[in-house]
C-alpha cells in the first residue's frame, strides 16, 4: 500500500483557515437570518435587537466607532458587506477563497468551484439589497456553505488535509456556539418582565434556531427551558453544533493527524484538546450554572484559543525543539 504524501505546513494552515472562514460566514448568515425572523414576532427597539449580534461577533468596539447606534441596515451592512470588517461575510468568503486558491492542487476541483462561485456571487451583490430580499440572501449563503461542506466530505479524501479542514470547521463552530450562548443568556436572563410570557419562549427558540437546533432540541427535551438549552448546546453527545460534539470531532481529527492513540498525547496540542474534551465529558450543567455561565464560557473560549494556537504551533510554525521531541517519541 502506498503511503499518503507528506502535507506541507503551509497547506495545512491554508485548508484549516479556509474551513474556519466558511464556517464563520455560515454562522454570521444564520445569526442575521434568525434576527430578521425574530423581529417579526417581537416588539423591540432596533438597537436592543441588533446590538447583540455585534456583541456575538466580538466586534463591539469597532462597530461603535464606525457606525454608532445599531440598526438593522447598519448591522447588516457591517456583518455582511463591509470589506473593512475582517469578520463580515464578504471578508470571510474572500479569505476562504484566497486560502483555497493558494492550495487548489490540494483540494478537490469541486470544492474550489463552489467557494469561487460563492465569492463571485458576493462580489456581484456588493450593494445593499432591498430589505425584502434579505432572508433569501442569507438563506442562500447558508446553503452555499452547507454545500461546500458536503462537497468537501464527499469529494476530498479523508486523509490528513481533510482532518485539518474538519478540525478548523469544528473549532470555529464550537467558538460560535459558545459566543451565541454567552450573549443570548446574558441578555435574556435579566429581562424578568418577559419571564413566563410567550416572548420568553420566542427568545429561547431564537437561540436554538441560531444554531439550527430547534427541532433537535424539541425531540430530546420537549419543553423550552434555559437550563436544558444550555445543557443541549454545551454538552449534548449527538447534536452536531454542541460544543462537546465539536470538540470530540476535532480531537478525533487531531489524533488522525498525529497517529497517536485517542486518550493519549505526544504533541502539546493533543494535551490541551484532551483536557478540554475530558472537562466537557465529566462536568454537568448544574455545576456550570452554579459557577456562572458567563465565567464558564469565558474560560472555555480561552481554552479554544489555546487549542488553536497549539495546533498551529505543532504543525505550522514548528519550532526546532518540537521536532527533536517528536522525533524522539516517535522512534
Amino acid at each position: 500500500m502506498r503511503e499518503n504524501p507528506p502535507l506541507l505546513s503551509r497547506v495545512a494552515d491554508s485548508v484549516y483557515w479556509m474551513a474556519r472562514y466558511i464556517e464563520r460566514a455560515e454562522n454570521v448568515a444564520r445569526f442575521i437570518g434568525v434576527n430578521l425572523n425574530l423581529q417579526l414576532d417581537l416588539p423591540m427597539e432596533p438597537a436592543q435587537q441588533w446590538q447583540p449580534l455585534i456583541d456575538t461577533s466580538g466586534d463591539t468596539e469597532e462597530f461603535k466607532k464606525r457606525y454608532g447606534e445599531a440598526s438593522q441596515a447598519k448591522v447588516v451592512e457591517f456583518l455582511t458587506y463591509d470589506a473593512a470588517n475582517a469578520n463580515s461575510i464578504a471578508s470571510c468568503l474572500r479569505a476562504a477563497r484566497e486560502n483555497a486558491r493558494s492550495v487548489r492542487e490540494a483540494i478537490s476541483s469541486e470544492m474550489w468551484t463552489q467557494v469561487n462561485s460563492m465569492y463571485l456571487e458576493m462580489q456581484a451583490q456588493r450593494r445593499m439589497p432591498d430589505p425584502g430580499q434579505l432572508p433569501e440572501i442569507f438563506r442562500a449563503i447558508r446553503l452555499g456553505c452547507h454545500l461546500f461542506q458536503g462537497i468537501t466530505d464527499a469529494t476530498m479524501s479523508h486523509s490528513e488535509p481533510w482532518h485539518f479542514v474538519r478540525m478548523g470547521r469544528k473549532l470555529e463552530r464550537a467558538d460560535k456556539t459558545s459566543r451565541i450562548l454567552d450573549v443570548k443568556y446574558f441578555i435574556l436572563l435579566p429581562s424578568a418582565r418577559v419571564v413566563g410570557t410567550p416572548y420568553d419562549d420566542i427568545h429561547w427558540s431564537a437561540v436554538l434556531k441560531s444554531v439550527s437546533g430547534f427541532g433537535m432540541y424539541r425531540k430530546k427535551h420537549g419543553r423550552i427551558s434555559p437550563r436544558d438549552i444550555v445543557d443541549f448546546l454545551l454538552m449534548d453527545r449527538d447534536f452536531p453544533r454542541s460544543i462537546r460534539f465539536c470538540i470530540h470531532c476535532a480531537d478525533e481529527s487531531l489524533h488522525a493527524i498525529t497517529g497517536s492513540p485517542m486518550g493519549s498525547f505526544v504533541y502539546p496540542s493533543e494535551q490541551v484538546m484532551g483536557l478540554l474534551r475530558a472537562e466537557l465529558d465529566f462536568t454537568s450543567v448544574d455545576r456550570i450554572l452554579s459557577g456562572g455561565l458567563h465565567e464558564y464560557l469565558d474560560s472555555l473560549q480561552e481554552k479554544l484559543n489555546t487549542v488553536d494556537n497549539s495546533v498551529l504551533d505543532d504543525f505550522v510554525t514548528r519550532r526546532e525543539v518540537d521536532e527533536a521531541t517528536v522525533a524522539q517519541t516517535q522512534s
Partner: protein
Amino acid sequence: MRFDSYQTQGFRDEMFDDAGVVRPEARLLLDTIESLEEGQLLQCQRAAERLLLQMGITFNVYGDSAGAERIFPFDLIPRIVRNDEWTWIERGLKQRIHALNEFIDDIYHDQKILKDKIIPAEVIHSAAFYRPQCTGINPPRRIWCHITGTDLVRHSDGLIYVLEDNLRVPSGVSYVLENRDLMKRTFPQVFEGSRVRPVDDYPSNLLEMLESIAPRGAADKPTVVLLTPGMYNSAYFEHSFLAQQMGIQLVEGRDLEVQDDAVWMRTTKGLRRVDVIYRRIDDDFLDPLAFREDSLLGVPGLVGAYRAGRVALANAPGNGVADDKVVYAYVPDMIRYYEGEEPILLNVPTFLCWRAEDRQHVLANLDKLVVKSANEAGGYGMLVGPHSTAAEREEFAAKIAANPRNYIAQPTLALSRVPTVVDGQFEGRHVDLRPYILYGKEINVLPGGLTRVALRKGSLVVNSSQGGGSKDTWVLAASSGDMG
C-alpha cells in the same frame, strides 16, 4: 451562423484557401458549425466564458490594480493542423531542441562552438541570461531544456517559421488542456468523426520526464515538486493546475530549505527530502546566494544543492542564454554544427543591430520591420514598423543607437488567420502556435499546442497581456492508430 460572407482579405487563412474554398481538413468542422441552429454557437461561446470564470481559470495582469484577475479569452473555432504537416513540424522541433540542448551544454563546458568561431564569443558573454555560475554543472542526463514552448507562425508564403524558442520557463500549456476540456463540455458535437489527437496525457508525460531526471540515490519513487512564486504570479493558475494534474506538491520558496546540500520541504511531520524541482521561478529569483541577493521568492542554497547533484532542476538554470534573440539568429548554424543536418524548420531572417551594415539597413527601414529587444518577452519592448508612428520610430532609432547589442529586427510577418467569433459573426484574426516539447529519456512533442489569437482587429500581437485570446488546436490523426 454561416461563413458565406467570410473574407480572407488577401491573408493566408488556416481554414480557407486563397480562392475562399474551405480546406479539406476543415470541411467537416465547417459543415457542423453551419448546421447549428441560429444563436447556438454564441450560446456555447457564452457558456464557455462563464465556465472559465467559475473554474477560476484566470491570469493576473501586472500593473493592474492589485490582484486583478482576468480570464484569458477563449474562441470556439479551433485551429486545425493537418497530420502530414504536424509530422514535419514535430521532426523539426525535435531536431531544433536537440541542437539547442547540445549548444547550452557546450556553452557551460568546452565552448567548442565559440572556439570554432561559429558564434562570436562576445555575443554569448553579453547575453543577458548567460549565467557563468552554471559553468561546469552537469545536470542529470545532460539535459538543460526539459520543457520548451517554441513559438511558430505561418507567413503569407505558407511556410512555418520559428519566432522564439522560449527555453526558460514557458507557460500556457494548462490552457491547451483546459481549452480542450472546455470545447468538449460546451461544444461536443464538433468532435464527432473529427479524429482529433488527444492532449490529456501531457501531465503524465511531464511527471515521467521529471521523475527520469531524479539524482542518483533518490528513492524508487522520487519526490517531485513544482516551485511557484506564489498566487500573485500571472501564471499561478497553471502552476496549481499542473501540480494537481500530476499529483505533486505545489511549493513556494518558504516551504523549502537547504541543509547539508540537500533540499527539504517543511511538512506537518517535519522535514521531507525533495529530489526534483519543476521550478516556475526565473533564474534570477531562484537562490539569493547564487543570483539576485534581494530575492524573497527563492531558496537560499538551492543552486549549491543542484551543483552538488543532490537535487534536479527543470528547466536547468542558465539555459536562457539561448533565448537571447541575437543567439536565436545563430540556431540554424547550431543545427548544422551539432547535428550535421540542414534545419527542418525555418528561422525568421534576423538583422542584428550590433553589426554596422545590419544596423544601417534597420534604421533605414524602421517602417517596414519589427524591432525587438533581445531579451524581453510578452510583447513588451517591441516596435511593429508598419503600425508605428513617426515618434515611436524615432524613439526606437535612439534606443538602437544607444545599445545596438540589445536590438534585432525582422521583416513584418503577415501571420496567418483563423476565423474567429467577433460581434456575432466570423472574422479573420491572426494566430501563432506554441507547441510544448518535453526532453527526458526522449524528446516528446504534445500534438498541437497553444494557438494564441490577436483579438484586436488587424493586430499581430497575440500575447495575453496585450489583448490576445486562445483557441483549441486540433492535430488530426491520419488513422485511428494515432489517437492514443
